């Protein structure tokens, strides 16, 4: 398929970390079904390290691949490092995404951050709210 890189297809066809974590320490869900993409990420965090991560995604091939790649990239990493995950890093790790699919990588970044925010909130850890921009509309999806 010329549409997606081999990396994307690999993560789409064999997504890593699919599933839920019943007793997650942080859960984040972004996107909406109207836009056609929803990602939900579950984190298990131990000593500020992400010991386990799972995701559920409703969306296109690149959405699933981005979720898979993003979860791989933060698994086993300290929370501080996961906070630095960018959509660009996801895109690079996937060997690129078509221009009109870049929003999927943005969603993946946001889903990770939303889960981390949930973890901070639940554990009353202080953070700078600016680190977690809202995703109230789908406007950025058009990017």
């Amino acid at each position, binding site marked *: 398929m010329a549409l997606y890189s081999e990396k994307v297809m690999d993560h789409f066809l064999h997504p890593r970390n699919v599933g*839920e974590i019943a007793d997650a320490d942080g859960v984040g*869900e972004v996107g909406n079904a109207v836009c056609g993409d*929803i990602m939900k990420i579950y984190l298990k965090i131990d000593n500020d390290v992400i010991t386990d991560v799972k995701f559920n995604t*409703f969306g296109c091939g690149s959405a699933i691949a981005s979720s898979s790649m993003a979860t791989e990239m933060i698994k086993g990493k300290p929370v501080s490092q996961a906070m630095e995950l960018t959509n660009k890093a996801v895109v690079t790790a996937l060997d690129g995404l078509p221009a*009109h699919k870049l*929003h999927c990588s943005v969603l993946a970044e946001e889903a990770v951050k939303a889960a981390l925010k949930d973890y901070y909130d639940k554990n009353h850890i202080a953070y700078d709210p600016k680190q977690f921009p809202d995703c109230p509309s789908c406007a950025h999806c058009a990017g």
Partner: protein
Amino acid sequence: MQVYADNAATTKMSRTAIAAMLPCMETTYGNPSSLHTVGQRAAEALLAARETVADCLGCEAREITFTSGGSEADNQAILTAAHLGEAKGKKHIISTAFEHHAVLHTLKKLEKQGFTVTLLDVHENGMVTPEQVAAAIREDTCLVTVMYANNEIGSIMPIAEIGAVCRAKGVLFHTDAVQAAGHLHINVQEQNIDMLSLSGHKFHGPKGVGALYARKQIPLSTLIEGGAQERGKRAGTENLPAIVSMAAALREACDHMEENAAKVSALRDKLIAGLSQIPHSAVNGDGKHRLPGNVSFCFEGIEGESLLLLLDEKGICASSGSACTSGSLDPSHVLLAIGRPHEVAHGSLRLSLSEENTEAEIDYLLREIPPVVAYLREMSPVWKDLVSGKKSFLL
């Protein structure tokens, strides 16, 4: 197994179509405008092709203008009616919300030029009625353009009846018959059609060629200016190989229309019945007035592109919405037009069959599709919310 079930996007050329094309590349390669024998042989082949297409539509050869495809034919038909209307101060056009973009975008362009466009609502079964058309016609209506059959959901419009309404009110009637030609009976006289568009590659003919029928009283506006080809209505050296091939394909399709329709619709019905077993799914379009090859479903809780890609891994070529809107983030305007909510419209699957598909392929589709739907649902947070009762099912 490899199953090509995307015949509404494009078909594979038939042996007949390829065989008709080759001599035009090797022997009859002349320019039909040339006076010499090689050119005049091409001119004769061109005329014969025009007569064949005319015969298949029930019109005269001179009422056929060859174009580069369905889109160009749609554009030219609509602009023609607009120009004629404008000259009489009539700048209102009626169409439907679920036309192909070749129609809708041309209408958008006209709106910018001061035309008013009424897009009729489409009933949830994918139908538009003659009564709706009659009610929408105004004093200043210059065109009604309603597709013969929808490319995504396969519903077939009551074209003859809509044509009759238009004729009675003296309004030009165009139909985009790109999905109908070669598959459904067409007779422009009986069906009161003033203009009709078709495209070669939808009935096992070649790509890059189409035809516009326009009743002989209608002076076509020129989209492409230049030489005097096509009676001065469409410039450019005629694409003879493609034109001849399209005519052969249309002839073949029309000659075998009934048997093909019987075969293909049996496959279709089996496929629809089987896929309907998938819970929280729904067929799109009308149960009865449906293209023989069209199977269109929405599956709640999943997204179409990932479904397509997984089916592709199993050798199944299908589409979600129409081919030309893939790559777009918006769900199909057709599915929205028949009232599917966005979240459901995203989960659509179109399988479009031809007479080349087999019973064994249908069995394969019925075996492979349900587990893929289940797999994607298992991964879908939307589906989980539905199952857990957090959200309620729409289908």
